[in-house]
């Protein structure tokens, strides 16, 4: 089972990094960019677990460590069984 955890700063928090990237894009000739928010991607490769268990366990991981709910929002995507290597 693989999963992707997408972490974003809450909309209420000024994303100084995003603002800087936006200014850089403007400088490079992309004035159409209205806003930039920079987030984090955490890819997880999990043993065994069925989707329901995986979702519950990832929820616990987010609560215990991966996400700070004071400043961040999270979305979890499950991608099913990983391909054999």
């Amino acid at each position, binding site marked *: 089972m693989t999963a992707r955890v997408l972490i974003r700063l809450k909309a209420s928090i*000024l994303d*100084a990094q995003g603002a800087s990237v936006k200014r850089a894009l403007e400088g490079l000739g992309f004035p159409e960019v209205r806003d930039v928010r920079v987030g984090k991607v955490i890819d997880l490769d999990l043993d065994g677990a069925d989707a329901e268990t995986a979702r519950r366990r990832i929820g616990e991981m987010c609560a215990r460590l991966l996400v700070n709910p004071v400043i961040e929002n999270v979305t979890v995507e499950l991608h099913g069984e990983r391909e054999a290597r």
Partner: protein
Amino acid sequence: MNFGVVVFPGTWSDCDFHYVIGEVLHQPVRYVWHRDANLTGLDCLVLPGGFSYGDYLRAGAIAGRSPVVEALPEFVARGGLVLGSCNGFQILCEANLLPGALVRNECLQYRCQSTHLLVDNAETPFTRALRPGQVLKMPISHGEGRYHAEPETLHQLVDAGQIVFRYCTEDGRVTKEANPNGSLRNIAGVVNEDGTVLGLMPHPERAAESALGGTDGTLIFHSLLGSLVEDGSFLKR
């Protein structure tokens, strides 16, 4: 008064705190390794600045779940005091021992400079030797020190007097220009509801000898020493 100075992989102000407590203030002090949850015999635990665990994921996030930090609620419950500076403040917020969070500086720059701090609350064990409205001079050194709290949390902090230090000008005015990192309301330091856990971004240990530019940092330690009463407990708020 027995002090402990916590050392995580990546901590950098541990030796400075140890030196100031032991050599400048002549108090008993020992290092506490981050895997050591035995805090017996300690009155005050210091979480110093640095980059614990490389600040991976978020500043202070991994340290905030370490054995020594998981032992802090019990340590505080039985009368211990906790002082977190810089990365230590970030760790205390990550561990939910203090409200709010510290995010990347608004200017995006790492700021290493002298700051002035307005004392808002002089009734905690950490600030008893100060007076409200007093201005202290202490350095900062961080890239992620912008204090953030949700509006309801901020109201609670204000109502309960939990905001202890705010960045200000030399003459004590709280202005945007005096705010080095974009912190909400210029907040530089907060305490928990009981006043027994203090977190601040500035470095008191780097303002402890006149040869190094000032001694205002020692006032926090003198407050602590003055708060210790005969039976070994502390005067609280």
